[in-house]
């Protein structure tokens, strides 16, 4: 933003030559990102052929089909599970981010690294770890039985609870990082001033810290909500037959039911939702100016 490099160095033969550098990358993205996504949009208006092919047409059948209770239920459930995941990540991540933001600079780096390391391990593997813990003969049940807390193993795996646990586990770092960035910038003298004026801890949190950290909170929530909403692996492995989410529905329509137009329509709906959320965030997170006023 501030440091857009001077045009000087590129002026000689740059602009023409640079197209040789830019061209292939832009072409690649256009051909493999923009075109395929546009195809999805186009196909969503087509109809399914008798043998699963595509019959080109311009109809809203697929979108109307999505109003069917079965699909509406899955869509609603996905939003619900993603929202619960986001809330839990916020509740768990906020104290952690706050703690890191207040830590000594030397420790900050280390703590952030600790938060990120699990994120860099394979998602499939991390999900599998929870299967190992939660299943009926799994670690948790074995432990609880040994301790005499429960008399018979409880069904933990293949449920919405398991899906939420898996999602929170997978995306918690996405919440902590933007929260940390925002909380670190909160002027500590403001907190001290409020403390001196006998504000309670709750008032300080609600009236000072949260409003100032708002852009980070919004960013974190979005970064958790979007991948949770479109999750495939977590509900696929940890969820039961009844915890299907949009991602699974899309996969099912494309690879199992072979109703591509319907799958495309669901994808477009998901995409629309994600884009809408992002736009909303960009608007809602804007009042950063308030932060400047305050400090």
């Amino acid at each position: 933003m501030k440091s857009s490099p001077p045009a000087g160095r590129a002026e000689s033969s740059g602009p023409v030559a640079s197209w040789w550098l830019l061209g292939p990358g832009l072409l690649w993205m256009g051909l493999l990102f923009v075109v395929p996504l546009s195809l999805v949009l186009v196909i969503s208006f087509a109809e399914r052929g008798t043998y699963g092919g595509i019959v080109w047409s311009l109809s809203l059948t697929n979108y109307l089909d999505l109003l069917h209770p079965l699909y509406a239920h899955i869509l609603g459930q996905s939003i619900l599970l993603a929202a619960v995941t986001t809330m839990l990540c916020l509740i768990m991540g906020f104290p952690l981010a706050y703690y890191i933001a207040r830590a000594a600079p030397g420790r900050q780096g280390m703590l952030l690294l600790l938060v990120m390391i699990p994120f860099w391990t394979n998602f499939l593997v991390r999900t599998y770890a929870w299967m190992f813990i939660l299943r009926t003969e799994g670690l948790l049940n074995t432990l609880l039985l040994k301790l005499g807390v429960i008399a018979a193993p409880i069904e933990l795996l293949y449920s919405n609870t398991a899906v939420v646990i898996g999602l929170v586990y997978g995306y918690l770092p996405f919440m902590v990082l933007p929260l940390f960035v925002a909380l670190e910038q909160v002027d500590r003298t403001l907190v001290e001033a409020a403390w001196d004026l006998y504000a309670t801890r709750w008032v300080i949190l609600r009236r000072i810290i949260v409003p100032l950290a708002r852009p980070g909170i919004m960013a974190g929530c979005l970064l958790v909500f979007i991948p949770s909403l479109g999750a495939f692996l977590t509900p696929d492995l940890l969820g039961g037959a009844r915890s299907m989410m949009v991602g699974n529905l899309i996969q099912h329509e494309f690879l199992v039911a072979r109703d591509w137009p319907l799958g495309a329509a669901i994808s477009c709906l998901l995409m629309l939702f994600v884009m809408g959320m992002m736009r909303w965030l960009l608007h809602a997170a804007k009042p950063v100016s308030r932060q400047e006023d305050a400090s």
Partner: protein
Amino acid sequence: MKQAGGWLWRVSLANLFFLYGPIAVLILFSFNASRLSATWQGWTWQWYRALWVNQALLDATVNSLWVATVSTVLALFLGVGLAVGLDSLPGRRQRQIEQAMLLPLVIPEVMMGVSLLLFFVLLQIPLSLMTVMVGHALFNLPVVMIIVRARLKKLDPRLMEVAADLGASYWDTLRHVTIPLLRPAILGAGLMAFTISLDDFIVTYFTAGPGATTLPLKVYSMIKSGMSPEINALSVLFVIVSMGLIGLSLLVQRR
């Protein structure tokens, strides 16, 4: 806020326990002698040894390494070019493209997988390891571009200006000044892309043809067909390799 300190520390610790517990459990039980239960029955290496003689697994590993290598090289060529070439555009255009390149990283991965599948099938391109490589190069390109551009913005523009003043052409400056200065970022981005490719499941799942089984696809089918300590052992290897590569990537970029 002093009193809150202890409470914050305990909650943070609980968070870290939540993040590391499952991984620790996985590692520990990959050495458990019992095949079926989650009760501890002594140490063994046998699950690791079983991996070593599993031909399907070794084949999948070779596939994964191929895909990661080719897609990383592709993403590096395209991504570095994009990062460097972007500088010649007006500032507003630069930001537009930079923001647009975030989109592939933000949209649900299932979307990317499905759209590529549709694209390949409609163009009648048979699904194979090739299509997987193309897909991986697609999501790795923005990663490379972002890392390289972050470094590029930190470079002193005067270095390039001096080269131009001394009569170096655009390409000469690029080859002898810009690229060497960017080397740590390029290396780091490459390692990062390689790791992401090795780990990817979803895009691979949608773009892989029959026979084009990568390691994550293999792990997935193993998990689907039932839990076994071999999967634990394989998972541990995954954890070690990804962490090692990412650690290396961060180390390289620090220079």
